[in-house]
């Protein structure tokens, strides 16, 4: 048993954290997050140059990672800095593309960060489920995809569609004819879009779509959960610091027992969340049932603890926690919104209960 990360992973994590400390202040994150692009191209390229994308993918596609712990280390570090750049969509869509064993020319550009890709699967009526209606008629894709991450600024989109009863996956150029991208801001920073596809032509990917989607979404769940963990660690640091600095009634807030107990509760819940992430990492390469159970356990825990930590941290801060100017609120928003992506607490509780 060994709960320490390998030397290489620790090194990568430190490199990302150092970059955030020196080159990624929250103010510039906010400028990028609320820009037309939804992130900073400059930060994207600098972060890509650190090798993040290579760490997310395995050797067989020229990456140097791709394991659960690689993904977790990267996203926890990104979470601590509230990084808004589109690494999550790169991971999910990239994982599917990597699975094909083809399109290596495109993949090289994705690894280096010179091209970007996203995944368009879920739909307005599908909620968190795989029940899609987008369909293929005479080799053309038509339908409505919702909340597609950073669709406004990618080069490629992987689109799922039904051919009869069978789900297939297609590589679509963002500039394709018949593709309308209705892009908007998200409350946690960055952008997403609803896609209206009207007879769009794409290249069919030669893989079993259900399996590829499940694997990619699983990695996405892991990434989101690790990101949430990084955010929670940062919120913990902010909150402890605040109650040690702020005084009311002539006493540091941290001296009030009622508040001490609430902070203690947050600390132990975050430890539980960390264990859930570790469990999910180590189950990622195991059989389907073990893997899916661990991923649902992880995302469910993150959803529950994330809401608790966000709400308690704001309450412990009082009015200052409600302001835009102070950094806590932005971390809290992203933390809570992670529960709105790839299945919330209730969704994963139900999914887990079916696997008991």
């Amino acid at each position, binding site marked *: 048993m060994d709960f320490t990360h390998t030397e290489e992973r620790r090194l990568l994590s430190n490199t990302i954290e150092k970059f955030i400390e020196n080159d990624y202040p929250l103010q510039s994150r906010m400028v990028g997050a609320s820009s037309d692009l939804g992130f900073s191209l400059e930060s994207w390229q600098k972060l890509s140059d650190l090798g993040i994308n290579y760490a997310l993918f395995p050797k067989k596609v020229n990456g140097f990672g791709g394991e659960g712990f690689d993904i977790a280390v990267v996203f926890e570090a990104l979470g601590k800095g509230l990084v808004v750049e589109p690494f999550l969509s790169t991971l999910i869509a990239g994982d599917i593309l990597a699975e094909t064993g083809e399109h290596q020319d495109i993949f090289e550009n994705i690894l280096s960060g010179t091209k970007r890709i996203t995944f368009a699967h879920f739909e307005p009526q599908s909620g968190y489920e795989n029940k899609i209606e987008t369909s293929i008629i005479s080799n053309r894709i038509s339908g409505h995809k919702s909340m597609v991450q950073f669709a406004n600024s990618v080069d490629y989109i992987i689109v799922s569609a039904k051919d009869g009863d069978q789900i297939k996956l297609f590589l679509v150029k963002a500039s394709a004819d018949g593709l309308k991208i209705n892009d908007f801001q998200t409350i946690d920073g960055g952008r997403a879009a609803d896609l209206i596809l009207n007879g769009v032509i794409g290249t069919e990917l030669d893989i079993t779509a259900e399996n590829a989607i499940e694997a990619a979404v699983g990695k996405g769940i892991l990434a989101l959960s690790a990101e949430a963990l990084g955010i929670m660690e940062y919120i913990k640091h902010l909150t402890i610091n605040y109650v040690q600095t702020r005084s009311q009634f002539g006493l540091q807030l941290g001296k009030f027992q009622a508040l001490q107990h609430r902070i203690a509760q947050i600390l132990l819940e975050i430890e539980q969340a960390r264990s859930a992430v570790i469990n999910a990492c180590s189950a990622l390469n195991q059989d389907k049932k073990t893997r899916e159970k661990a991923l649902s356990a992880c995302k469910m825990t993150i959803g529950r603890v994330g809401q608790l930590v966000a709400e308690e941290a704001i309450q412990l801060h009082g009015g200052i926690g409600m302001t*835009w*100017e102070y950094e806590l609120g932005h971390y809290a928003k992203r933390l809570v919104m992670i529960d709105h992506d790839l299945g919330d607490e*209730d969704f994963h509780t139900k999914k887990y209960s079916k696997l008991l």
Partner: protein
Amino acid sequence: MDVNFTKKQLLFKEEVRNFLRSAIPKQLADKIEKNKPLNKNDMQNWHNILNDKGWLGSSWPKKYNGTGWDIVEQFIFEDELASANAPRIVPFGLKMLAPVLMKFGTQEQCRYWLPRILDGTDWWCQGYSEPGAGSDLASLKTSAVKDGDQYIVNGQKTWTTLAQYANMIFTLVRTSIEGKPQQGISFLMINMLSPGVEVRPIKTIDGGEEINEVWFTDVKVPAGNLVGEENKGWTYAKYLLSHERNNIATVGISKKKLEKLKEIARVETRNGEPLIADPLFAARLAKVEINLGNLETTNLRVLSEAEKGGDPGAESSMLKILGSEVCQELDHLLRRASARYGRIYRPEALEDGFNGQEIGPFFAQTASSIYFNNRKVSIYGGSNEIQKNIISKMIVGL
């Protein structure tokens, strides 16, 4: 024991409902239905409609041109306002300043200021909290120094809701540093248009600009703007809090929110089934509905005691805690119901006259913003922790 309203109260409820049905402009009711923010015109417009009917002073006695309604009737009125998708009455002048003036102000002050609240001449905001005085309000430092027939005010207030619309602010200011901090506080009304007053907006977590900092630099205030006695302001502020029992739990608003939420849960589908058929979501709905049902009766029990003239104890603190918990849980569930679209953030789509592309269900447009914004309700007006301190002191004597 009878938990039902009397025949007279039911007739009153009917009368209010009938009036509201025709009185609320459709454009306003639509905004409320869709949880869109109101601007000053919207609020003033609604105040004027109620004032024309003679119902704006819903908690005021008849001698000040109020309705003279008893406390249960006031509760019913608030309940019906929410139920009819009516805008909330802006409370600062009508429900916060006015009771203090009536109880502790002079005849002259009442005669001058109260009609101006009703007719909209004055828009009031509340200047209590300061950067260093939040939960520990009594440590406030904004000073008012007597200089002949005026006070000179210096300091800073914060979290001042709707100060950007107000021309008047009622404040707690320090007039003495002798004795306990509570003993040197006075209640002073200040004209926001006076030289030396500066309002700076504070952007909130959801991107809204509803609260402000208010700065005072050598602001001259007529001594006649002092309410009651110098150094007794703390007593007046406490009087206000302990007498706020009819709407502090916002039962009416929560009932309406729950009704809307259930309607949404019946229409929204998950995996082909209505959301309300999802056992986990339904259990969450059931719990909040049960809590709200209990809270309504708790609130009515408090009002019934108050009608008999009982001295208020910690009831308003209890109601505030319970009401904020229900409110925040309802906001949480609406956010949860928004699922993937809960992340949408398009303030431009909430503006009057927006005719761009609609994306996602209507309630998802504001669900998360409201959820984050209403984290304030367990913080403002004395945080829930402070309310629990009050309860422990007053009831358990700890």
